[in-house]
C-alpha cells in the first residue's frame, strides 16, 4: 500500500493506493497519525485507488477518525469505489462515515 499526502485548500488529502487489509491497516493508521503530528487537522482520505478493503481496513478508518477527532480535527473519506461503498453499506459503516463523492466535497459543508 502506498500513500501520498497533499496539502489542499483548507484540508489535507491522504491518498491510499492499493489494498487496505490486515497487513496494510496499521500502515494507514501510522500515515494518518504522522500527518496529524505534523499539524494537519482536517483530513480527507482519498480512496479512489483503494481497490480492496476488509474489516481490518474498516477498523483502521475508525482508528484514523478517532486520532483526528482527538487532535481536534476530523477525518472524512471521499472518492470511494463503488464496490467498497457496497461493503461500507453492508457493514453499516456508512452510518459512521459518509462517503463523499469528491475530495473537494468533503469539507464543503464545513
Amino acid at each position, binding site marked *: 500500500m502506498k500513500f501520498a499526502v497533499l496539502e489542499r485548500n483548507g484540508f489535507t488529502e491522504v491518498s491510499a493506493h492499493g489494498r487496505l487489509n490486515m497487513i496494510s491497516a496499521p500502515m494507514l493508521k501510522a500515515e494518518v497519525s504522522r500527518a496529524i503530528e505534523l499539524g494537519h487537522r482536517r483530513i480527507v482520505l482519498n480512496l479512489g485507488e483503494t481497490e480492496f478493503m476488509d*474489516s481490518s481496513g474498516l477498523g483502521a478508518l*475508525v*482508528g484514523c*477518525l478517532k486520532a483526528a477527532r*482527538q487532535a481536534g480535527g476530523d477525518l472524512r473519506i471521499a472518492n470511494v469505489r463503488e464496490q467498497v461503498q457496497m461493503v461500507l453499506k453492508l457493514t*453499516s459503516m456508512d*452510518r459512521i462515515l459518509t462517503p463523499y463523492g469528491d475530495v473537494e466535497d468533503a469539507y464543503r459543508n464545513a
Partner: protein
Amino acid sequence: MMSIHAIRIVAALTVVMGLIYITWRWTASLNWDAWWIALPLVAAETYSLIDVALFSLTIWRMSNREVAPTAPQGLTVDVFITTYNEDPELVLETTRAALAIRYPHTTWVLDDGARPEMRAAAERLGAGYVSRGSEWQGKPRHAKAGNLNNALHETQGEFVLILDADQIPRPEILDQTLGYFNNRRVAFVQTPQWFGNVPENDPLGSQAPLFYGPIQQGKDGWNAAFFCGSNAVLRREALMQLGLAGYVEDTERRVSRALTAGRRVLRTARRRPEARDPNVAALLARVEAALAEGSRRLDSGDSFGDATYFVQADVDAAVRTLVARDLEAASADAAALRAELAEFEDEALGDDPAELDAAVDRLVARDLSPLGALESVRALLDAVSVERLHEAQPIMPLSTISVTEDMSTSMRLHASGWRSVYHHEILAVGLAPEDLPSMLTQRLRWAQGTVQVMLRENPLNMRGLSWPQRLMYFATMWSYLSGFAAVVYFAGPLAYLLFGVLPVHALSTAFFERFVPFMVLNQILFVLVAQGAKTWRGQQYSLALFPTWIRACTSAAANVWFGRPLGFAVTPKSRGERRRALPLVWPQAILAVLLIVGCVTGVIRWGFGLSQGLGTVVNIVWAIFDVVLLSVLVGAARYQGYEPRAVADKEEV
C-alpha cells in the same frame, strides 16, 4: 467409543423416567403441611431434571473428528501468550515452547503487567512483546479481553493462537488445527485444557474430563463448541467483523441516546431561576438547538460522524462564548459543579449499555444549574462520541461484557453465522491452581462470568443462534444455578432427622418405583458418556461448592442490574502465601457437622418412636451421601500442592 446409539437410548429413557417421576412429584406426592421444604425440594428436583435433559441434548450428537484436516501452507499465524502477573520464568517456558511450534508463525508475549524485564527476556528469546499503550490510561482495561484486543490491533496474522501464560503448547498444535479453517465459515478451533500439575486423585477437581470431552464434543455436534480463552485458534477476520458490527451498533445507540438525554437536561435547566439571565437563556437555547439539529441530521440520513462533528463544534463554540462572557458567577462554584458531575462521568464510561442508560437517567433526573447542565451535556457528548472516547479502542473484537470474554465472544460469533470446531486432542499442557483458595477464586470467576453473560445477553433470545445452539449456551449457564438446588438437597435430610418433617406424603412404593429407575438410569448415562474418565470429582464439586455458585449468581446479578463491582480477582497461578482454608469453607463445615448431628438425632428420635424406621434410614443414607460429597473439601484443604515425583510415571498422557 461407546456406540452413540446406546447413549441416546439411555439418555431418552432417563429423561422419560425423570418426567414420569417429576410429574408424580408435583401432582401426587407433595406434603403441603410442610410446604416450606416440600416446594423447594420439588423445585430443586425439577431444576436437576432440566439439567439432565440439557445434558442429554448436549451429548445427543457428539462429534467425532478423528483426524484433523491437513493444514494448508502459507497461512500467517500469530501466537499470543497472555500474562498479567505470572512468574516471568513460567511465561518464558511457555514462550520457548511457542517459538518451537512447527508451523511458521510469529510469537508474541502479551504482558499486561508491562514489566521491562519481561520485555527484555521475551525479545532475547526472539518473541515479540506487546503491552498496552498510552491510549489505555484511565480507560477500562477489560482484563484479558482488553489485553487480547490491544494485541489484535498491533499484529497482522490471518489466524491467532491464544495461550494462557501457563499453557505449554506442543509443536504440532497449529498443524493439527489450521486445517479446519479450509471451511471458510469456521471462526475458531478449540482444543482441550489439560493440566500437568494435578495428581491422580485430583483433590481440587482441576481436570474437566467431562467438559473437555463429551460436553464440548456434544456442543460441537450442534455447531456450538465454546471458545474457552486458551488453547484455541481464531480467525482474525471473524473477530474483526464482530468488533466492527459491535462498534457501529453501540455508537448508533449511544449517540442517539446522548442527543435525547442532553435535550432533556437542558430543558430542566431552563426552569431554574438562574436561567432567567438573558445571556444564559440564549446560550441554553443555542445548545438545545444544536442538539436538535444533530437529531434532525441523523433522521435525515447524515452519518454519525458528520452529525456528531457538527454538534460538538457547535456546543464547544457555545461553551467558549460562555466562558468569554465570564458567566461563571451564575453558577455554583467549580468544585460543586465537579461534584455534581463526578458520579456521572465515572458511570458513563462503563461498557455495558444498561449502565450507560442508568447513568443518563440519573443525570436527567438531577436538577442541574444551567452551567452544570451545559458542562454535563458536553461531558455526555464526549463520553458517547463517535470515536468511542470512553474506551481505549473503538473496535473491540473480543467481547467485554463479561469477565469470561471467551464464552460471550463465541456466542456472538455463532450468532453471526460463523462455525466452530472442537478438536479433541491435548495440544497444550497447563498448570492448575494448587491450593484451595486459588481454586475457589478461579471457580467463582468462571461462574460469575457465565452468569453475567446470561443476564446481559440471554442466549434463549439471541437471534442468529439456532435453537440447539441457544440450548447449548443455556445449558452451561443453567448448570451454574446448582448452588440453590444444593442448599435444598442438604436441607432435606436435616428436616426429617432433626424435626421429623417429610417433604413427601409417604415413602411409599410409589416413590421408590419412580425415583430409583430414574436415578439408576441417570448414573448409567454418566458412566456411558464419561467413557472411563473420572467424573466423580466434578459431581462432588458441583454440589460442595454451593456457596461459591450462589455468591457468583448474586454478585453477577448485583453487577449487571445495579452496577456493583464483582470483586474480581485474577487466578493465582503459583502457590502464594498459604491462606487458611477453613474461613473459606465454613458454610460447608457447619453443614457437615449439622448432617452428622442430624444422623445421631435421627437414630435417637427413632429410638423414642418419634419417627418411622424407613424414613430414618432413607434420610440417614441421604445425609451420609451429602457428607461424602462435602468431604472432598477436606482433601482439598489439606492438599499441599503437586509433588511431581510421586506420579512421575503417570505424567505422560
